């Protein structure tokens, strides 16, 4: 990507927006009395702090080019896989399979992304990891909760490696009239994911009435969902100038990203509830682990990738 002027213009706007949000957020948190509103702003401020980290890492990686973006997402996948597998029932007899997940499957998937081997990228984990990982576990001969163990390992790979790798894969897309600039799609995607999720959360906690799945995630409401759809369309349309889309196409794609992310986060919340944890891991302090910040991107990344590839790809 390097020194594309659009990237720098966008980076400037994003950082400026973050700075303004940080100042307002901190001011409001400390001027409001302790209570419900204050708690909401404490959460928003933690989100904003996590955004600073995400924004700086992402913009830095984009400035370094393809290698930088790949390195960043390899680390993200690694951290997410580590978090996910920590919660599973895997045991000693799965150690070959687990070592393979970290030291073979993950590198191969990212190699396929880097080399733009579309077939391998879309097939390797869903088909070949699916076949060979349980073989590795079975060779060790431990039947106890076998199906649970292999299913958990496969899920961990699908979520943390397969789905996540579709974000950097965006920059490999070949789009006519948009040559060499596909990495901007990553910035579009991440901005839409993060902003629309926050609109959904803030609107839902202020005006939310009907909870969608109170047992899974009490903060997800119908009102928040509607606000998220509208908000994501506005953000998508506002960002159309960095994409190969027209303004209304950008709005529709942003809405799809939001809806998939919203539903994906619900799935991830169900897993967290089942395991009795509030957050995935320790990496980002109050905002939980890497997976907590990713949960909305995980389900939307493959869908967004395929839509763009199918309708805009060369």
């Amino acid at each position, binding site marked *: 990507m390097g020194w594309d002027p659009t990237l720098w213009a966008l980076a400037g706007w994003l950082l400026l927006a973050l700075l303004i949000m940080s100042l307002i957020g901190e001011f409001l948190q400390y001027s409001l009395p302790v209570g419900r509103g204050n708690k909401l702003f404490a959460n928003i401020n933690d989100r904003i702090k996590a955004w600073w980290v995400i924004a700086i890492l992402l913009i830095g990686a984009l400035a370094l080019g393809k290698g930088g973006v790949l390195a960043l997402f390899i680390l993200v996948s690694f951290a997410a*896989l580590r978090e996910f597998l920590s919660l599973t029932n895997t045991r000693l007899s799965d*150690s070959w399979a687990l070592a393979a997940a970290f030291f073979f499957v993950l590198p191969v998937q990212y190699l396929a992304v880097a080399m733009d081997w579309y077939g391998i990228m879309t097939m390797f984990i869903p088909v070949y990891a699916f076949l060979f990982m349980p073989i590795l576990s079975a060779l060790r001969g431990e039947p106890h909760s076998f199906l649970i163990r292999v299913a958990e390992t496969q899920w961990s790979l699908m979520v943390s490696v397969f789905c996540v790798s579709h974000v950097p894969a965006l920059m490999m897309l070949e789009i006519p009239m948009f040559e060499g600039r596909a990495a901007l799609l990553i910035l579009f995607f991440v901005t839409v994911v993060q902003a629309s999720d926050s609109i959904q959360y803030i609107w839902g906690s202020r005006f939310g009435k009907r909870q969608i799945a109170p047992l899974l995630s009490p903060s997800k409401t119908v009102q928040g969902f509607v606000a998220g759809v509208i908000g994501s369309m506005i953000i998508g349309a506002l960002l159309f100038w960095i994409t190969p889309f027209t303004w209304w196409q950008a709005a529709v794609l942003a809405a799809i990203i939001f809806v998939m992310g919203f539903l994906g986060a619900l799935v991830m919340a169900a897993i967290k509830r089942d395991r009795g944890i509030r957050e995935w*891991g320790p990496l980002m302090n109050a905002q939980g682990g890497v997976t907590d910040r990713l949960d909305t991107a995980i389900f939307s990344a493959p869908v967004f990738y395929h839509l763009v590839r199918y309708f805009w790809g060369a």
Partner: protein
Amino acid sequence: MKAMFAEIVSIALQLLIRALTAVRGIWIDVSPEDKPRIYYANHTSNGDFVLIWTSLPTDIRKKTRPVAAADYWFKSKTRRFAAESVFKAVLIDRNPETRKPEEEPVAMMTAALEQGQSLIIFPEGKRNQTEEKLLEFKTGLYHFLHNNPEVEAIPTWIENLNRVLPKGTLLPIPLICTVTFGPPVTLKKRESKKRFLRRAHAELMKLADMQDKGRV
């Protein structure tokens, strides 16, 4: 020169442990304090020392030494270097017949304590490779506190490391680990050995149960 090399090895080990486990220390009803204490922990893997170490704040870590068996750590040159220079372990001769009076475990541990250092011990006495969560404690912890009744013993629960370094596999598997420190246990006046050890064991099990229920 040797000290510098030991320092580099120590930093490298801690970085490796962080990369593999993203370990964090969780302090429940106790706060990290820079004073001589004894941390007693469950023992499932050879990496246990380093993990507890890594999860302690730097100023405390520098003054905290593990207590370990001399026969195991004197077996090879590398091990000896690791124990003596990197971990600065208090090395105990486990055979009462060959050791001199000044090498009595309690005496050696007390000496370290008097220099302002904290200790890490594994009261189960060996690595736990059973399905049992926590084996019965050996009596060392009691004898030490009997000699030093003012010292706080901090229950320390290590979660998951036995899955990171499973015995008999070459590659470590990256998984999140936590080290949970619980409220201090001190020896009460006239408390019997059996009663104290049972209480200390129960305090550590409490932390393990909290982990299981996801309340940490």
